């Protein structure tokens, strides 16, 4: 393969990996704010390793939700990784132990980078480089955030409380942009999800309203005949 294409893929993958990995500090701090021990935040980053699900888990726990509601919301957000895996199979063609290892790195960013690469070999390289960079920095920064937040006082706590909803908004935002496939429908579903969650808050056990808000996907309506978004458009 040409040397320049290779280094371009590596540069993009490592650049994205570093930027996303920094976000791990916000996760570590959010986990601390939700009452998790630093080691629990670190375990989530090492073993769950899928940002939206991790944030959802600590978000529900932080709102006073049950363990079941927290696990449920993490799993619901984890379903999109299954779809990413299906798209990556022709590219990675993983077998045996390699499949077990590759699965752990099937996330938004690795999928977008590898499917966006010019050919199969570069796609595999992008998958590995993005996965390795994010895995290292995400875990490192989670520890920094979790241990760093543990000693914060009142004003810093208030800052952290404001960072958590902003972090969810930042995860959601790319799906609402005009360039995203069916952005208008995404916005409708998002508005519906928020409305359902707020309306249920006074009446259901904490955290349950988040899981139940998934009914808002009904607002998306039936599948279109030719609907087929690409993974690079789905990064979030």
């Amino acid at each position, binding site marked *: 393969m040409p040397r320049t294409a290779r280094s371009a893929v590596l540069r993009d993958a490592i650049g994205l990996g570093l*930027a996303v990995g*920094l*976000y791990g500090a916000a996760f570590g701090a959010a986990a601390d704010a939700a009452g998790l021990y630093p080691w*629990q935040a670190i*375990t*989530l980053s090492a073993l769950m390793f*899928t940002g*939206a699900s991790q944030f*959802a*888990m600590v*978000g529900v*726990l932080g*709102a*006073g939700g*049950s363990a079941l509601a927290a*696990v449920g*919301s993490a799993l*619901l957000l*984890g379903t*999109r*990784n*299954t*779809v990413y*895996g299906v798209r*990556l199979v022709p590219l*990675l063609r993983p077998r045996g132990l390699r*499949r077990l290892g590759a*699965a752990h790195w099937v996330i938004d960013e690795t999928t977008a980078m590898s499917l966006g690469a010019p050919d199969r070999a570069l796609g595999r390289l992008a998958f590995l480089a993005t996965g390795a960079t994010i895995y290292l920095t995400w875990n490192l920064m989670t520890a920094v955030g979790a241990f760093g937040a543990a000693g914060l006082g009142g004003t*810093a706590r*208030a800052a*952290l*409380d*404001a*960072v*958590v*909803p*902003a972090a*969810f*908004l*930042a995860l959601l935002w790319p*799906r609402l942009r005009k360039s995203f496939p*069916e952005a208008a*429908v*995404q*916005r409708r*579903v*998002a*508005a*519906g*999800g*928020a*409305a359902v*969650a*707020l309306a249920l*808050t006074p009446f259901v056990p904490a955290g349950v309203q988040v899981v139940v*808000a*998934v009914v*808002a996907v009904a607002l*998306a309506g039936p*599948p279109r005949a030719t609907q087929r978004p690409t993974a690079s458009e789905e990064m979030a």
Partner: protein
Amino acid sequence: MSGTTLWAAVLAASAGCYLLKLAGLAVPAAWVEQPWVARVVDFVPAALLAALVAVQALTSGHQLVLDGRLVGLAVAALALALRAPFIVVLLLAGAAGALVHVVAG
């Protein structure tokens, strides 16, 4: 919630999320690529993330509450609309929340 319950939740959700990833690499593509399945999976993140935004910014227990978190969220939305990097968005939201805390005492 006891520490043991919390650890059990952390490990169970981690195992579940890993199995969802592995399933994509292991099951026949046709199972996952049913139009209805694809439709639901495409829109679940929007519904759930928006619900989390609302719950994290506007509620405390079973109450609806207006405080610095909503100000932080508004600042974050503005920064995102101006295409600020993630880390800048979070820092601005945090600064806004802290400012409200100090001003409101």
